[in-house]
């Protein structure tokens, strides 16, 4: 299984290493650097690199490469999934997962890694158990710790590891009992030149923040569960109940977790919330190009489209862009040729537009490719698929919890080809 782990930052420094079996020399990372050099973009480094004696499996998150060294056959997804779980845990603990955060908390990181793997095989990966073992650092606690010399390693033994519901801490207590659920849907779509949809699908997740005392047993039911085409659950969800009644029944972990992610099939027509009118042309011979972009709302069910961000990778030949937005601000990075336009809210009465010219490299011929436009947006209080939570019930505890449900629609990989 996993022999060692190296963390490598964007500039190629190994800033943390951890070994679970015999020590593997750092030099093994040279193969990784080689592959990194060969790849033009950071994300093009192959996730699996064979070397004469080891295999390197890496993931890139937050501009840090997590490189695991393995020696023998193991399902690559097993390692990749674990590495992502490590990153998620760090994020959970430190808020962000940056090189600085890891360096600041190197001892906690080390303790975490020690608990997560035993001899290279995952031991405790549930964040609830880990938090029982090692308390996440907070500003207050670090201050208290430095003054009193107490520790952030859990005093009591982690009983959660032994329980039937390993994902939940035991002895949870809150004065305010609350359970919040966020239904977040993302639209993945490719729109072609003429504005017709090539492919569109909805991916949704239900993220929960549950702060309930004791061992509550929750059930969540939907008005229209049939919409959900393909689902994957947090291990706490009782699968059989779902199969039989289409009801989510579960004993929740404590704190934040992802209850469910789902997919709404592309058979159902997906409402596309915005349209884009574009006219991007380069004339042969001249060093000028025209850029004209207008956004408008479409099928939003009366809700307003917010936090719109348009970005586009312009062709390499473009030297500069001189554009005029009707609202919001735009930036153009002449090095990466990345144009981004922060639109904000779309006002249906006055459609936002971005017009102007692009200057091209003198003498260069007209670029034959047209840029694709990526759009990000948010629509509050609406799940675009129409999914609605019917009710949430709690059993097993006597108090009355405060419940809340929020809906949101976002653009996922929303692309317009020009």
């Amino acid at each position, binding site marked *: 299984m996993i022999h060692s782990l190296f963390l490598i930052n964007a500039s190629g420094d190994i800033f943390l290493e951890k070994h679970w079996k015999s020590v593997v020399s750092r030099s093994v990372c040279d193969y990784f650097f080689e592959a990194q050099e060969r790849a033009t973009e950071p994300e093009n480094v192959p996730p699996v690199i064979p070397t004469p004696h080891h295999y390197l499996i890496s993931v890139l998150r937050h501009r840090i490469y997590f490189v695991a060294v393995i020696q023998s056959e193991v399902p690559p997804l097993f390692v*990749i*999934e674990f590495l992502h779980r490590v990153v998620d845990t760090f994020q959970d603990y430190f808020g962000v997962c940056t090189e600085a955060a890891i360096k600041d908390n190197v001892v906690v990181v080390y303790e975490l890694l020690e608990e997560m793997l035993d001899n290279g095989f995952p031991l405790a990966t549930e964040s609830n158990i880990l938090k029982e073992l090692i308390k996440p650092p907070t500003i207050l606690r670090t201050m208290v710790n430095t003054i009193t010399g107490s520790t952030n390693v859990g005093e009591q*033994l982690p009983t959660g590891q032994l329980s039937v519901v390993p994902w939940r801490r035991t002895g949870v207590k809150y004065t305010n009992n609350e359970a919040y659920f966020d239904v977040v849907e993302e639209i993945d779509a490719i729109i072609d030149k003429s504005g017709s949809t090539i492919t569109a699908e909805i991916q949704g997740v239900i993220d929960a923040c549950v702060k309930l005392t004791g061992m509550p047993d929750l059930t969540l039911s939907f008005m229209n569960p049939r919409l959900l085409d*393909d689902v*994957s659950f947090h291990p706490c969800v009782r699968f*059989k109940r779902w199969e039989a009644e289409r009801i989510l029944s579960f004993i929740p972990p404590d704190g934040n977790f992802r209850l469910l992610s789902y997919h709404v099939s*592309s058979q159902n027509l997906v409402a596309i919330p915005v349209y884009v009118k574009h006219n991007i042309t380069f004339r042969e011979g001249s060093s000028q190009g025209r850029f004209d972009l207008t956004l408008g709302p479409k099928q939003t069910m009366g809700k307003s489209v917010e936090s719109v961000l348009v970005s586009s990778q312009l062709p390499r030949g473009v030297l500069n862009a001189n554009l005029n937005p009707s609202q919001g601000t735009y930036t153009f990075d002449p090095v990466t040729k990345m144009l981004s336009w922060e639109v904000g809210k779309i006002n249906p009465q006055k459609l936002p537009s971005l017009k102007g010219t692009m200057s091209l490299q003198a003498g260069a011929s007209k670029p034959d490719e047209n840029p694709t436009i990526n759009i990000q947006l948010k629509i509050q209080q609406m799940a675009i698929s129409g999914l609605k939570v019917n009710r949430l019930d709690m059993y097993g505890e006597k108090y009355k919890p405060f419940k809340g449900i929020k809906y949101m629609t976002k653009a996922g990989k929303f692309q317009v080809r020009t």
Partner: protein
Amino acid sequence: MLDSNKDSLKLEAMKRIVAMIARGKNASDLFPAVVKNVACKNIEVKKLVYVYLVRYAEEQQDLALLSISTFQRGLKDPNQLIRASALRVLSSIRVTIIVPIMMLAIKEAASDMSPYVRKTAAHAIPKLYSLDPEQKDQLIEVIEKLLADKTTLVAGSVVMAFEEVCPERIELIHKNYRKLCNLLIDVEEWGQVVIINMLTRYARTQFLNPNMNESLLEEGNDKAFYGSDDDEDEEEDEKDKKAEAPAMAKRKPYVMDPDHRLLLRNTKPLLQSRNAAVVMAVAQLYFHLAPKAEVGVIAKALVRLLRSHSEVQYVVLQNVATMTIKRRGMFEPYLKSFYIRSTDPTQIKVLKLEVLTNLANETNISTILREFQTYIKSMDKDFVAATIQAIGRCATNIGEVRDTCLNGLVQLLSNRDELVVAESVVVIKKLLQMQPEKHSDIIKHMAKLTDNIQVPMARASILWLIGEYCEHVPKIAPDVLRKMAKSFTNEEDIVKLQIINLAAKLYLTNSKQTKLLTQYVLNLAKYDQNYDIRDRARFIRQLIVPTEKSGALSKYAKKLFLALKPAPILESPFKDRDHFQLGSLSHLLNAKAGGYQELPDWPEAAPDPSVRNVEVKDSVPEWTKCSSREKRKEKKVEKPFYSDSEGESGPTESADSESDSASGLESGSGIEESGSGSESEESEEGSESEEEEEEEEKDKKKKKKELKKPVQESESEQSSEEEVRKHERKNKQRKSDSESESDEEDDSESESSRSESEDSESETEVKKKKKAAESKPPSKPVKKEKKEMSLLDLDDFEPAPSPQVTPVNTFLSSSLVTDLEGLSLSDTVLSPATTSPCSALKSYELLHRITGEGLCVEYCFSRQPFSPDGNMVAVQMQVTNNSTSDTKNLHMEDVKLQSGMRVKEFPEIELLPAGESATAVMGIDFCDSTQAANFQLCTHTRKFFVSIQPPVGELMRPVFLTENEFKKEQGQLMGMNEITEKLTLDAKCRNEHAIVQSVITAANLSRVPCGSDRECRFAGRTVTSGSLVLATVASKEEGAAQLTVNCEKMVIGTMLVKDILLALTQ
């Protein structure tokens, strides 16, 4: 600071040391100072010291030994968590001297009370193995022991240990196979991955290929031959299941082993896991093991993974690419999910392209090509090149679009980007090779391009094309050669080689025009720096230029150079990857990784499935065991008597032979006695029915005897052969029900065919034994049923209308009962037991024979798991046709249920002749409520409204808990979930055995072993939701007792209390 007294200072020091380790700096010189803090009280310091110790112990072996005693002390700690962590650190210290200590610790921990410690022990096994491989044999013993562990916590870890230490010892899995399948869903996710991968390999060695028949069909002409061959094979393998089919019988359809089915069924829900590795593991399991028709389910889940991180996408796409080559149809509905976005990393784009290409067929090619057209405009040039190749592959695979593709590619030749042009040229070259005649204008066009294109590979391709088809372009070719000769010295090697080739070819076809040019080129090549080119030039000169010395070869030069060359086949690089287990590292790299376990081919013949039959250990209290053992002995003494009277009678299934002999053995007193003897045995058994069912007799002889009983009964009933066969069929049905429905028809068919063919006697003794082992469990319910039927008929005072079995049976069994009482006078244990078989499986009337116009239906809860759906309660129906006419098409209709309830209907009974009876099993998911299930029972003439209402005790299934588990669970179900009642026990049921008996009769629970003899504990789970049901009966003096029921579902708890109370006080 480490020597300081203050913990805070020590902690600070340790933190700095750990930070040093993390940065990869060497901190080993601090070893002595650190190691003495191993006994420090502060937990964090301790932990950090452990971290340090594990890191450096290997380098400083001697000093590390100082710390060992601390851990050894920890191993004895009463707290399981401390024991576990001590073992964990101890086993992580890589010092060879402590191997014996580790071995001892692991062995001890493997039998620890706490599953958590056992899990740690499982983790420690591979550590020790890597430290000292010589311990393998001992470790395997430990693994074997831990494999038998029933807790989910241990399962994953021990299988991991198994895979690392002894993956070849597949036989260790046999006994645990079913348990692993059943536990799988509750194991933690990492364990699931390991177990699924292991089970895939296991299943490949143990089951037959489910797609065997299809592959045979594909073989076309050979089919008949192979088919018949296979028949024999199959039969021989499955001889324990099926008889030899009559010679005329057609090839038997493949029947999936129920264990194979179990695996597929239990892994399917895991496709919904959030863990990509688990999903992938299930997907590969289905791909490698499932019948073609069922593989489709994985596509959806895999497509879902494409939403995940790009690394996950990369791996999944690799696997999808392999799958699409073999099973294209599976992913076709998801074609659009593989469309490429400009933001994807290049490696993902290329893989998606690969998948799209594999998915292309006549119907979707136009959409795919349209997509490809947009891709060609992409800024990512590597990707564009890959797209062009993909177009080339589409064109070769799908003839209809070849011309379209070619035209498109030719257009690309005028692209400004050289890379694009070059790639197009290469692809066009390959395409043209397939049909050069039609496309001389394209070749001309390309010839013109030589002036512009600089990419060597493209230039080389063009030159080759011109040379190859110089007959089609007779005017241009020499001109091109002229130009090339001019620039020869500046060309790349690969282009030079092609120039030489071109020259040679032209020389052969058109020597007039090109003789001098060729000479010139060859001369240039002669002095080239590259020896390959020099070589080639020399070789060609000798070959084509006729000299005096030139041998025979030059005559054939033309043939050599201008032979018709077969068109290249553009293949996917993923073509042959599927011989690696999907999802594995080796598959990804397309090379064998260290420690890769080859996925074995399907066996020609399935190994004996009975090896997976689990022998459950005795959980029966000592005294019962004793008595049953006594009985067994008794039996043994009687044995010769049986065999005398029945000759060589085999087990039930070869009953026809017995029935033959039965005619000669009319009901003599001997048989009467033997009958009663067996009856007493049986009732005794029934009295302990639950325990007995779990208890597995290893004693073959006894088994045999039990099996004979039904036969004896039918014998003494003076039954006809038909009767026997019916009985047998019933028996058979029972068996197949308990296994899988799919087997049913087939088995009974083969069964009957066998009884006709009277071959059974000639079967070897071995086979019989096997059969005995196989049929042992099913035989029991049958005889119970038989008996209960008869006893019920006792109450029924109506005279039987037709010459039926039952009255005789009644007579017999009543006499049996009396006999039995006589026998059992001395044995008090047996007295309450005589009535138990009927109460253990209480039968209810569904349709009375008067209202049913002669059709009489009774049902009972068979307490067997309902195999098609574990959430259902199996309801066994006994349908008797008392009318004078045949009943046809008996089936159920119009099921009215409370919400949430589900019913699995029994298969239609097509024909029930007058006077016959049949059994059918249906499954009802009562949703843990006692609501009735209403439905109509339809025959070909009439419909009857009926309803089935379950007693609460039937809504659960027994689970096995240890005493500790029981206490723990009980502790969690306190308060509202606990119901306690005081009661006075009925005079008859004051001993423990009677209590157990009544409780088990009232509810389908299993006994939990218990130290105190005043308490009886039972455990079960509700069938639908799996909520735990625990019952405790604590008896006190004077028959006073207290009943406690703990159950998550309070309604069920209350009702259960009532039922048990009733059972205990009456």
